[in-house]
């Protein structure tokens, strides 16, 4: 299956492929833009090393890299699980499972991500906590005192914005990944399921041992692309005052009025991350297509 080009991935050129061409052609097709990009990055890092202002901005903002990385990785792991469950639901014969999954996916698709993040952080999470509290009271009345009162006492305020952001990103990207998994499962020929069932496997066994291994393999590049997209979209959680690189850059700029330094560093940090990740996806894709030849 071809992975559709997405706007999140940098189309890293791979040089030195194919037949040797005349110098003139090579100069015309040479990816000058990529060289320019690398030079831009190098110049910025040079500024960081040589000028005080940039160095200060960099050391201040780079502290947020930990949050950006961990929030992306944790949210993406949850999103994978949610996406797999919802993706299978989208094509399930079970009416309830299918409709609940479709409802979820379509709602997420129809709302801007920023709005979803506000909604999940300030409405959905408090609702869940409220529900858990109620459940705790219920348990207390059933005289299951300790667990009950523990659950009943969870407070909305004690739930950090970091975890609200993780939940928001997981739910949002879960819906995107669901569509990737669904497409992956649907890309597997019907004969595979039939062969598995004809051998006596249950639907679940056929999914687990025959369909999903092939489907997931097919969508690995697409999953990689969406991880890159998520790293970029994680900047949105700065609206929850989560101290990722975007939020810290804003703080730095607001405090020092060095907007140019702050946002240049921010751009370069994101670019560096996306280039490295895009390159990894690209290399992985090539290795896969070589293997399956």
């Amino acid at each position, binding site marked *: 299956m071809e992975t559709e080009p997405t706007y999140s991935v940098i189309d890293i050129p791979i040089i030195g492929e194919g037949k040797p061409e005349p110098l003139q052609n090579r100069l015309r097709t040479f990816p000058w833009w990529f060289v320019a990009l690398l030079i831009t990055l190098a110049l910025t890092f040079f500024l960081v090393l040589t000028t005080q202002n940039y160095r200060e901005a960099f050391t201040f903002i780079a502290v947020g890299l930990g949050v950006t990385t961990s929030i992306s990785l944790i949210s993406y792991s949850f999103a994978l699980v949610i996406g797999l469950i919802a993706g299978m639901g989208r094509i399930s014969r079970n009416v309830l499972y299918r409709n609940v999954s479709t409802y979820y996916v379509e709602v997420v698709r129809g709302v801007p991500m920023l709005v979803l993040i506000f909604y999940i952080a300030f409405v959905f999470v408090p609702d869940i906590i409220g529900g858990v509290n109620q459940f705790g009271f219920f348990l207390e009345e059933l005289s299951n005192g300790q667990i009950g009162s523990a659950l009943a006492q969870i407070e909305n305020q004690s739930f950090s914005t970091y975890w609200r952001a993780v939940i928001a990103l997981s739910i949002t990207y879960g819906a995107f990944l669901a569509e990737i998994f669904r497409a992956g499962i649907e890309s597997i020929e019907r004969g595979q399921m039939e062969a598995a*069932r004809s051998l006596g496997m249950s639907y679940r066994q056929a999914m687990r041992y025959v369909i999903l291994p092939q489907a997931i393999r097919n969508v690995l590049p697409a999953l990689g692309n969406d991880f890159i997209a998520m790293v970029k979209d994680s900047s949105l959680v700065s609206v929850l005052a989560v101290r990722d690189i975007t939020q810290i850059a804003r703080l730095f700029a607001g405090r020092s009025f060095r907007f140019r330094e702050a946002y240049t560093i921010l751009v370069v940090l994101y670019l560096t991350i996306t280039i490295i990740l895009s390159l990894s996806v690209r290399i992985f894709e090539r290795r896969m297509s070589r293997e399956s030849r």
Partner: protein
Amino acid sequence: MNPADPIIEVKDLYKYFGRVKALNGVNLTVDRGRVVVIIGPSGSGKSTLLRCINRLEVPTSGEIWVDGQLLTKNEKQLNEIRAEIGMVFQLFNLFPHLTVLENITLAQKVVRKRSTEEAQKIALSKLQRVGILEKAEVFPRQLSGGQQQRVAIARALAMDPKIMLFDEPTSALDPEMIKEVLDVMLDLAREGMTMVVVTHEMGFARAAADEIIFMDEGLIVEQTTPEALFSNPKHERTKLFLSQILHK
């Protein structure tokens, strides 16, 4: 062999796909150890009949009994019955992400709950039987069509099925590979496997079939021995069809 020992009984089978009537009231009995060949023009319902027998298609109405059990919607029962019915498809349907050996051991392990060693031992013996023992460790895409189909047969046989269904097993093969697959099927027939085979290989029908069925428009038009059908077809439609395929 007990002459009246039915292992498959199909009673008044109807199958509609929306408006399309694929099966129009089929009645069929297959006795244990018999080889039944089904022929008929494209779209006459041959595949649908086979696929109803192991419930890859759910009949619109009618009853199907396999080895004394009425097929129902019960998934657990269906899984058990399907494990007893091997099916070989036109396009092989091997699992491309698994090696040949893994293709043959997977269902043995998850359905028959055999240990890996036991499943591998059985797989290797089946591979030997279809004549490609040396290909155990390769992936399906590295095999020719004929070899892939023989692996598919080995995969079905490893479940120790009581019945084997073949849906045009050689029609996707290059001509030079047809024989290697038919030879395996002939061997199976001689060893007494109950087989229902959709094929237009008349040589195979002559050599192996106890009965031959001609289907048209979702109905069994004629059911007799191969000799009788080839030398003395009773229905006009049968004559027409035979003249078409024999003069190709």
